[in-house]
Structure formats: C-alpha cells, structure tokens
C-alpha cells in the first residue's frame, strides 16, 4: 500500500506530492486529465503574490505582511480567515527557494504588468512551465503519476480515509490522502443549477464560458460535501470576468481578455449602455463586468471604441469588427442601428472634454448622461469604429471544504486524521469573495505543502505503530 495518495494534478496537488515524497513517503498522484492537459487551472496562471520586506530577484520594493493582509481584506470584503490568510502570506515570503529547487523559474513582470512588479513574482513561461517543472521534479523524486485517472468517490471509515474509488471502479488504498482536485467551474450543469432561470426565462449559466480547464467538474467536492465534510464559501458564487465572446468554451485563459472597455462604451443587445465604463482601471473592474454582462439579455454585450483607442490597450486576441459608421457597425454586429447611433450620439454630446489620459484616472467624464461615464469619456467619432463582443467567463468557484492550519478535511467541526485538502478545493477558506492576482497560487502552494507534509507524517506514524 502506498503512503500518500494525492488526487488532482495542478499546483497544489504537485506541491503536496513533492512535499510528501520529500518527507519520505511513497506517493501516487492521480490526474483526471490526459497528460497533455495536465495541471488544471495552474496551466493558465502566471504569478505568485509574494510578501517580502526588501527587494528580491524579480520583485521590487517591499510588500509587508500587513499590506498584503489589508489587500486581501479589501478584495474579500472581510469574507476570509485572518489566521489562515496570514499563514499563507508568511509562507509566500519563504516558499520561492523551494519552488526554485523543484525547477520553477521566475521572470521580471511582463510588459503591461508593471503595477505588479512589487507584489507578484512571475513564473518564467507562465503556469504551464511551472506545472512541467513540478511534474519533472516529482517524477525524478519517484512520485508515481497516473494520468486519465478521475476519482469518483472516497471510501472512509468515519472520518478516516481508507481508499479512493476511481470512475472505472478500481480502488486505490493509501495511508493518507490529499484532495487537490479543483473547484466545479467547468461543471456547466452545476453552474446552471446554481444560476437557475432569470426573469426573462433564460438560463444564463448556459451562456457562460469557462476560462480554465474542462476537468474541474467538482465531482469530489460534491461527494465530500454530500457525505458530511464541512464546507465553506457561497456555492452560488463564482469569480467571473467579462471576456471575448468568441473565446473557446474551455481554456481560453488570459488572452481572451478585452481591455478596451474603459476606452469606449459598452452596449447590450438593445444597443443601450447599462453601466459606468470608466469607473476605475480595467484590472479593478473586469470581474464586476462579468456579472454585469451576465445580467444582460442573452448574457452578451459589446464594447464599442473608435480609432483613437487603438494602441492604448493590450492587444486583443480576436480582431474587432470594424466599420466606418456607427450604423454600419451596428448592422455588422447584429445590433439595432438606430438605437446604437442614438446611444453614441447621446454619449458624445455629454463628454465634457479635458485632458484624456488612459494611464491615469483622468478628468474626462460625462455630464447629464445616465448611467454616467466617470473617466476616459472621449467622443466616439473617429472611424474606423470597432466592436468587441463580451460574455461572462468563469474563472473559479468559491465553494470549498472547510479546513484549518493542518490542511485537514473537517467533519462536524473536527479534523480528519488522514484526509487533507489543498488548492482551489479549500481556497474559499481564505478567499470567500473577490480576487487579487497571484493569491490562488499562494494559497495552493502553502496548503499543498502543508497537506503533503502532514499526510506523509501520518503515514510514517502509522508505520511506526504497526512496527
């Protein structure tokens, strides 16, 4: 019988597997996906939010614990656990040498992300390179890796893990187990169940795109909750971003973002505006817009800009639809042309002018317009005009298993001795709401290592007792 069974194949699972192996345990890792899709949502990540008190290799300035905590407090609106959060924050300041030891390399913040140069250490080559490095390291250490191996359920004796039952019916016993199999964001039926029907008789979730892996179906998450594990996080909530409607259904990742929203207007299927596009910088607003678009008819909207905006936002992966008049653009986009022309005319007439500066919260706003546009309000009058379709893209779900500083799964508020949880499956303990870049990887790395170490310790203890 193996010592530690790790279920999942992303960052948290790999950190757990490697840590358990380093602690002397024999380890098997079960990844649901085929080898070429391994790594779950970690494939799409790009950095780790790191506490540091002085400049480090790729990090400038300092990012002390308190500031990190305040940032987290702000984005979660207080739906967090300070004790666990500070634990993750402190670990983020010491985990990088360990990551390097296992092949992860860092690079300077990417162009267009200078605002993250102080707080986030970027993985060279992104998350897939990190995942590759960890798999290589795990293999070299002797971790047994099984691809195409989805787990259906867990066999327990009370709170104690006995075995994992695979979807094909096989049974794998182990002394202890780490659950790190992700959230349920790619389970569209579950999302639909949660979102239900809206006032217009639509089922909005059926129109959502999934930004990450198609393998996060939440099978074990649901199984664990259904069989009595304590849970955390609102099951009806997910992190949702406005992305290009033409993105693939799964795995669109970072490149499907549409960053031109604050530079123009956004209209719904009726050709009408519905929210302040210039409220704040796009990285601070894109998550709000996911939900806003989800509330529109057909769960779709269009960002409309003119020639002046070109070169002021990160290049989009799909080209915009272009036209020399607003009416023509409306026809090409399938929008009511008179209404769109009217919307643009009203907007143009209400722009007060001023010094336009897309790199600052400038003074260009609208007057007498509902809803207003509070920054970057500049007339849409210089052809060609561009239209980009927006849809909600789900990044991750918040529902998870409740845990503590030992990473144990808990039943009726008491910890299991040999069943642990890490990564997206428990991130909701710390991230009950909202998001800030690189925090998911910080949680996954910290809890993955804790879970792996504790799982190995339990296995060693059991051997000792048996001997």
């Amino acid at each position, binding site marked *: 019988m193996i010592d530690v069974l790790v279920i999942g194949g992303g960052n948290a699972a790999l950190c757990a597997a490697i840590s358990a192996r380093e602690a002397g345990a024999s380890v098997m890792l079960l990844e649901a996906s085929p080898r*070429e*899709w391994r790594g779950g949502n970690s*494939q*799409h990540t*790009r950095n780790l939010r790191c506490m540091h008190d002085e400049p480090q290799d790729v990090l400038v300035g300092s990012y002390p614990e308190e500031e990190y905590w305040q940032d987290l407090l702000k984005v979660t609106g207080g739906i967090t656990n300070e004790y666990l959060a500070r634990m993750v924050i402190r670990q983020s300041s010491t985990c990088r040498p360990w990551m390097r030891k296992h092949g992860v*390399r860092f*690079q*300077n913040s*990417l*162009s*267009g*992300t*200078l*605002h993250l140069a102080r707080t986030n250490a*970027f*993985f*060279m*080559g*992104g*998350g*897939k*390179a990190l995942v*590759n*490095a960890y798999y*290589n390291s795990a293999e070299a250490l002797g971790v047994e890796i099984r691809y195409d191996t989805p787990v259906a359920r867990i066999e327990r004796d009370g709170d104690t893990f006995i075995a994992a039952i695979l979807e094909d019916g096989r049974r794998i016993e182990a002394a202890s187990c780490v659950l790190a199999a992700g959230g349920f964001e790619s389970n569209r039926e579950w999302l639909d169940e949660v979102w239900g029907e809206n006032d217009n008789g639509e089922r909005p979730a059926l*129109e959502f*795109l999934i930004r990450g892996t198609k393998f996060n179906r939440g099978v074990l998450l649901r199984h664990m909750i259904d069989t009595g594990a304590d849970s955390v996080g609102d099951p009806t909530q997910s992190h949702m971003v406005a992305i290009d*409607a*033409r*993105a*693939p*259904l799964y*795995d669109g*990742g*970072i*490149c*499907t*973002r549409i*960053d031109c929203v*604050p*530079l123009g207007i956004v209209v719904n299927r009726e050709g009408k505006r519905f929210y302040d596009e210039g409220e704040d*910088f*796009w*990285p601070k607003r894109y998550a709000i817009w996911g939900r806003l678009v989800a509330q529109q008819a*057909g769960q*779709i909207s269009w960002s409309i800009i003119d020639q002046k905006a*070109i*070169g*002021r*936002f*990160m*290049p989009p*992966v*799909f*080209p915009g639809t*272009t036209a020399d008049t607003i009416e023509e653009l409306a026809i090409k986009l399938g929008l009511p042309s008179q209404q769109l022309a009217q919307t643009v005319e009203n907007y143009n007439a209400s722009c007060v002018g001023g010094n336009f500066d*897309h*790199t600052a919260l400038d003074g260009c706003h609208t007057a007498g317009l509902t809803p207003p546009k509070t920054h970057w309000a500049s007339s849409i009058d210089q052809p060609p005009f561009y239209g980009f*379709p927006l*849809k909600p893209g789900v990044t991750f779900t918040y529902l998870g298993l409740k845990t503590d500083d030992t990473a144990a799964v808990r039943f009726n508020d008491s910890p299991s001795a040999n069943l642990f949880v890490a990564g997206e499956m428990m991130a909701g303990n710390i991230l009950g709401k909202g998001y800030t870049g690189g925090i998911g990887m910080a949680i996954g790395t910290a809890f993955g290592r804790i879970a792996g170490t504790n799982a190995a310790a339990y296995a060693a203890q059991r051997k000792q007792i048996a001997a």
Partner: protein
Amino acid sequence: MTTQETDWQTLSRTTPEVPEAVATILEYEAEAQRILTICNSCRYCEGFCAVFPAMTRRLDFLKDDVHYLANLCHNCGACLHACQYAAPHEFEVNIPRTLAQVRAKTYSEYAWPEAFGRLYDRNGLTVALATAVGLSLFLLLTVAMNGSLLHAPLAGDFYAIFPHNLLVGMFGIVFTYAAIALGVGVSRFWRGSLKSGTKASSMSGAASEAIGNVLSLKYLDGGHGEGCNEASSRYTLWRRRFHHMTFYGFLLCFAATSVATVYHYMLNWHAPYPFFSLPVALGTLGGISLIAGPAGLLWLNFKRHPDHGDQAQRGMDRGFIVLLLFVSLTGLLLLALRDTQWMGALLAIHLGFVMGLFLTMPYGKFAHGFYRSAALLKNAIEKRAPSSINLGSD
C-alpha cells in the same frame, strides 16, 4: 450566440485586415500572424528570449515583422512546452515550428540570385549534389593532373598535387561569390521593418550587444541560463555547447587558413607546415571541435521533440551538419596520412567536401547565421528606440 467555437474557427484561419501592401502574404506568414496575435495578448514567455519582447513592441505583424521575428527565433523550444495554447488546445500555437517555416521561406525569398532560392526547396538534395560536384571535380582533377589517385609519398606537400595558385583561384572565386550572394540576401532582409527613432549614439551599444548575443548564443540559454529544450520539457545546455564547438571549430579552421595565407604571401613560408606550427595547430583543434560539435548536434537533432521546428527542414539541417562533419573528418584524416601514398586521394576528397560547403553557403543552412545575426542587431537597435505604443496595464 449559442456556439463559441464557430467564430474562432473562421477567424483563426483567415487573417483579417491584411493591408494591401502585404497582399502577397504567404500561408506560413499568415499562420505566423495568427499565432503572434495570440502570443501578444498572452505574453507569458517574455523572459525566454528576444522574440517575445520584440513582439510586444508591435500591434500588427506585417510581412517584414514576421520575417524579422522568424529569424530572431533560435528554435529553442521553451515557449512550446510552456504554452497553454499549444495543441491539443484548439488555438494550436506552435511558435518554434511556425517561425521555422517562415524562416526557411525567408532564406529562399532573399536568396540571390532569386532563381537560386529554389535550391532551398529540397536542400538535402542541393547539399548532396554540390558535394558530389565538389568531389567529382577534385578526384577527376587529381587523375588528370597526376595520372593516378595514388602516388609515391610526397612528405605532405599538397601543392605537388594541386598548384597553389589553382586552389587559391578556385576557392577564391567560389568564396567571393558566396560572400556576395549572402551579402545581397542579408541586406535585402535588413531593409525590412527596421524601426526608426534610434539615436546614432546608441548604435555602438546595439552593435556590441548583438555581437555578444551571437558569440555567446545568448538565446539558447532559456532566459534562466539552463538552456533549451530538446526531447522534453527539461532544459539542457548541450545544444548551446555543441553549437559553440561547431561555430568556434569552424572559425579555428578558418583562422588556420588565414594564418597560412599570411605565411605564404607575407612571410614567404610555404606549406607543408610542421605539426606544431600555428596553422596546423589551429586546424587540428578546429577540426576536432568541428567533429565533436556537428556530431553532437546531429545526435540532438535525432532526439529532438517531434513538435519542435519544421520536420520538412531536416534535410537542410542534417545535410549541413553532415557536410561539416565530413569536412572536418577528411581534414584530420588528410593531416594524419599526409606522408603516405593516400595523400592525393584524401586531399581531393577533403577539397571536394570543402567545395560542397562553399558552393552551398548562400543556399543552405549556413545562411542562418547571417540572417540571425542581422535579426539580433535589428533587435538590439529597436529595443533602444522609444516605444511608439503606450498600452494601458492589463
């Protein structure tokens, strides 16, 4: 809007809004544009090499940009293994392969005279034929001038077989032609998308950076110094090392010939030179290096991950490597047996391979060094110029 797949399928396969000036865009270049647009909105690979930072200095990828980026790429493979959009993802991003395909087209397109660009189409055959021509020429010449391939030992005196001036004339003409042809090709490539705005004062810095990049093979270090990918996602420095052996081995052999030329014309000191003389020492060292390097590169080439680069160019790559290997092997063999009756035959064979190499310099893999060096210089210049785009943060 019920299906998300359909739009991408059509959009991804047809490159939109290609300006009329580049209406003659080719299939491979269109594919490069499609992929570079994806990369430019992702940017995760910026730390690996020069290609990605150069890409972020652009919003559109016109033909000249694609040609430039293709030659800036060292085909290290890192960005393919790291790519979240590589197959089986439907975006099917493969920068190393796509840029390799464009690169081959640039060699062919910029070749001079233009008609000879077609020699790249089946380059393995081109190399083989050029070598056959070289070998036949010198073997026949040996028989014609000496009556036989074998002869009484001549104490290593090559000029007893072929008069010095004959060799100088033959190789001088072919070498000069090769240099002109390569020069014309590279200068045509150079005239492409050079960004304006660089101050003259930063030119020397750019030049020394580019020279440093070339001599150290900077962009085979993976950005982290641990090398590039060969068979898997693991990094290795062996390609860089073997390439260094090949490149510096070649330069040592070239230096041996140059020193001998100086000896001959300026010091009036004629071959054969003793084993411990400078030309022979340089040539021997270079020859050994030029065996180890290409042998290693060939070994790596066979082990290479099948998704790297362009399989169709293996003829060109391996043909060139094998040719270099034969040049050095026959050269060392000639040195070893120069005091025997085999010298004439070996000399003819060695010169045949060298002639094959010289003939294919402007029409084979040899050209890659010149186009890549030009691209590196272009990169060093444009990164010093102020950026014309001012994107908001992502």
